């Protein structure tokens, strides 16, 4: 029964090795899907390329459906997984700042690392920017602290927050995602093509 390392089925020393293997796969998939190109990434906001939306939603759907199936069949304990904590203030304001950073820089951290790895100079500069941003945040941590800790709601999931069956939620999410794929294709046909 998974997760394997916290349940000590695989010794904890393997953690770092799996980290590298998973990282390689992650980097390979991101790069091969075209996420090393900032103009392709930014395309989703101007309607000329929806790769981000497609990859992101497909990954979210496949992973959440797969995890639910594995949980149902007893291979994976959903309760033992790390759930991203919900800090309402931090998530909203931090997310808004990240969105602004996304549209100005054209990358998000994972993709910028990929792009830097294949020699994109703008991505290297972007990674430098991230490092400076983290540095600034840490130095001014006392200023940001109320924002950072604000609106803590616990390690909650959709099931806890809305008391809805995860299966119903995922089904609705799937329908929504498929609809968004259809709309994305329609929009893409209408918008003027951008060559990059």
């Amino acid at each position, binding site marked *: 029964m998974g997760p394997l390392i*916290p349940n000590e089925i695989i010794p904890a020393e393997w953690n770092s090795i799996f980290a590298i293997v998973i990282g390689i796969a992650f980097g390979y998939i991101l790069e091969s899907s075209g996420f090393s190109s900032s103009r392709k990434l930014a395309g989703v906001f101007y309607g000329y390329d929806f790769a981000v939306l497609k990859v992101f939603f497909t990954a979210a*759907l496949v992973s959440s*459906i797969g995890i639910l199936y594995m949980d149902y069949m007893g291979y994976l304990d959903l309760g033992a997984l790390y759930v991203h904590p919900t800090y309402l203030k931090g998530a909203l304001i931090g997310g808004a700042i990240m969105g602004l950073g996304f549209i100005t820089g054209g990358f998000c*951290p994972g993709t910028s690392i990929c792009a830097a790895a294949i020699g994109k100079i703008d991505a290297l500069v972007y990674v430098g920017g991230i490092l400076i941003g983290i540095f600034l945040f840490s130095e001014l941590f006392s200023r940001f602290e109320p924002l950072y800790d604000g609106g803590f709601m616990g390690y909650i999931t959709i099931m806890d927050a809305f008391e809805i069956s995860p*299966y119903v939620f995922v*089904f609705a*999410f*799937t329908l929504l995602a*498929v609809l968004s*794929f259809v709309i994305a294709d329609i929009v893409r046909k209408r918008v003027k093509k951008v060559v990059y």
Partner: protein
Amino acid sequence: MYNRKLAKLLTHSYQILAVILILLAGGLLLLPNYEKHEGIEPESLLANAISPERYISSDELAHKIISGDPSILVIDVRDSERFESYSIPGAINIPLEDILDEENEEYLDQAAYEIVLCSDDNFYADQAWILCNRLGYKNLRVLQGGMQDWFNSVINPPQPDEKMPNSEHELYSFRKSASMFFGVAYEDEVKATPPSPKPSPKPKTVAPVKKKKKKMPEGGC
């Protein structure tokens, strides 16, 4: 011509893929629903509950306490009144009805100590043990025979008579010295050992039991 056919097929294949995705998600809805149960499987719980491995004898416990084993922690599951009147030195009191309270979890679900549950007999202690075992708590033992056996074998050991084998006499002398450790005085020992001030069952300063880390370290970014 060929290209157009291919294109047509391609548009269809996306639709087929979308249908597959929706079907897979919908399949989750169709799965026969059942309540996920809390704790380990009933079969393994029954096997654990029947196995006598969890029992620790009074003599063994006395030996561990006397030798100052730091890893042992006795939890008395009787009510506080009975606990106040007498308990094993160093024991802490968690009444059976509170055994599942959150604040007691750090005592029961931990890896630092070997916990010995005790009650008057081992009936209540066993109940506590079975519930904790279902929740997957490790390192829990039960004092066999409970306080009754503690009294009959450690505090007031029966004196063996002459005919009994040597081992019985050895056991008796161990138990006798153990009972003296726990405060019992014997007249015939008066001269050999002046009645030492009774080691009052001082409440053991329980170092905050280090809770087993359950949550993963800060994940994500």
